């Protein structure tokens, strides 16, 4: 039986349009990043990547991402467990609240942290009196990064855990398994791929966050400059090749993220086919 849009001409036209537009709109920018980064040869690329300020920015960026992931992981798992395993008043409100970081502009996210924890804020002024500086230092970068990335793990887990239901865990619990044992032996094996994908997304966003971080970082070279901020400085200094060298590193992380997603989805579809 024929389905809508199955006529060969229509099909060819639509596939062609989708491919051409995607190539121009999505693939071309990706190619351009690497073309620009290597436009003056491997040696220049390498010297751009291996200079002190770039290495420091890479280190800071990875360090912040490494600290962000466990924080978001604990929150994401706790929230997903809470809203999918129990029903209580306010459940829907909690689920709406975790979408706030998706809707709030990154610049506004940075600003609200700056206002609260900066020297003039009510917490910031108290901390300042105790010689603790969070803003324009790495803790501030970590705080806003956690803000913008915290929904990812929860968002991946909630639909899956809702679909799976709590029957297996309830069986374990009624058989006398303790809470943590149930979680490790029953829940975790069921959600590990979604959990992994949540972590990968968290990492991708943490590494690349720009707007929020640029408000609270101060962007001091060799101190509070993350890789995206460093890239911006190089670009504004008319060192486009240097900027694109940093961009290529970040694009590589993005490509790894896409590859990981594709392979996780392939694994999931293969498991579905086996069942």
């Amino acid at each position: 039986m024929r389905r809508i849009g199955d006529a060969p001409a229509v099909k060819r036209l639509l596939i062609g349009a989708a491919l051409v537009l995607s190539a121009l709109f999505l693939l071309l920018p990706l190619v351009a990043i690497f073309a620009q980064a290597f436009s003056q040869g491997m040696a220049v690329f390498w010297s751009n990547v291996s200079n002190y300020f770039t290495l420091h920015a890479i280190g800071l960026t990875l360090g912040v991402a490494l600290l962000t992931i466990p924080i978001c992981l604990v929150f994401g798992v706790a929230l997903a467990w809470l809203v999918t395993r129990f029903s209580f008043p306010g459940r829907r409100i909690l689920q709406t609240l975790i979408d706030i970081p998706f809707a709030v502009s990154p610049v506004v996210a940075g600003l609200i942290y700056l206002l609260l924890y900066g020297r003039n804020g009510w917490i910031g002024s108290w901390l300042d009196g105790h010689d603790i500086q969070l803003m324009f230092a790495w803790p501030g970068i970590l705080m806003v990064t956690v803000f913008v990335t915290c929904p990812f793990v929860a968002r991946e887990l909630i639909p899956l855990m809702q679909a799976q239901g709590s029957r297996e865990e309830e069986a374990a619990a009624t058989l006398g398994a303790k809470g943590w044992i149930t979680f490790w032996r029953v829940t975790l094996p069921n959600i590990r791929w979604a959990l992994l994908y949540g972590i990968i997304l968290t990492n991708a966003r943490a590494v690349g966050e720009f707007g929020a971080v640029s408000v609270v970082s101060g962007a001091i070279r060799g101190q509070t400059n993350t890789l995206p901020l460093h890239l911006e400085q190089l670009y504004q200094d008319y060192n486009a090749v240097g900027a694109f060298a940093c961009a290529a590193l970040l694009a590589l992380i993005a490509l790894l993220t896409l590859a990981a997603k594709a392979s996780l989805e392939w694994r999931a579809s293969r498991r579905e086919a086996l069942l």
Partner: protein
Amino acid sequence: MSLALRLTGNTRVLPGFGLSMGISVLFISLVLLLPITGLFGQLSNLSLAQYWAIITEGRIVASYTVTIGAAAVAALINAVFGLLLAWVLVRYEFPGKRLLDALMDLPFALPTAVAGITLATLYAGSGWMGRLLEPLGFQVAYTWVGIALAMAFTSIPFVVRTVQPVLEDLPAEVDEAAMSLGATDGVAFRRVIMPHLWPALVTGTGLAFVRSLGEFGAIIFIAGNMPYETEITALMIFVKLQEYDYAGASAIASVVLFVSLALLLAINVWQGRFVRRLHGGKG
């Protein structure tokens, strides 16, 4: 308590309610809600007249127009382009399909600043695209068209990834019935497919629009940032901050925050309604 009673679900069989509730509420309060109080603290230093004067200043109002206009254009482009991509990815088999599917997530995975400098370089007069377009009279970089382009780039996955699952779940009988009754492709698509798709399409386009309103990193490089012409509202907040005008930055931020939270709520309510409708009264 008997086993049967415990399994009816009235009692909480599973452990961890207190712990997960504690972590979730503490985290949401500290990370998401507490910082917003800082914004209101700053705003309380302003009189209503001062607040009004800041948010209605000419240059700021011009930035609202640019931001909303470009975001609307980007959302409309994405509604069409996203629908096309979702359709092609679900309905057809062709070489490179898996690659195209993976490519759809690129704008989410790619850091916004990377997208920003790349689009600016591509569409500048000397760039690959700029060299083709400028002789034809299309200037993209440093105009609002460039802003709309950057917004469309960062938000396209919202439409594709919202429409795709709905289209996948649509049973083949739906369009087979329409086709066997002799409808043409166009009529069948409009009358039979679209009624199923448009709630998801509106949700995805709405999310893309909200994302575009707040986008910063991808836009500022290609925008040119000319006062009254190509300045977006997020940039105005940033400029006020660099001038240490915290009150001004907060006032503008409160407008952006209010609009984006109101839109988020509207999308959630809308989505909740149509999900309930699909699942027969239980959301």
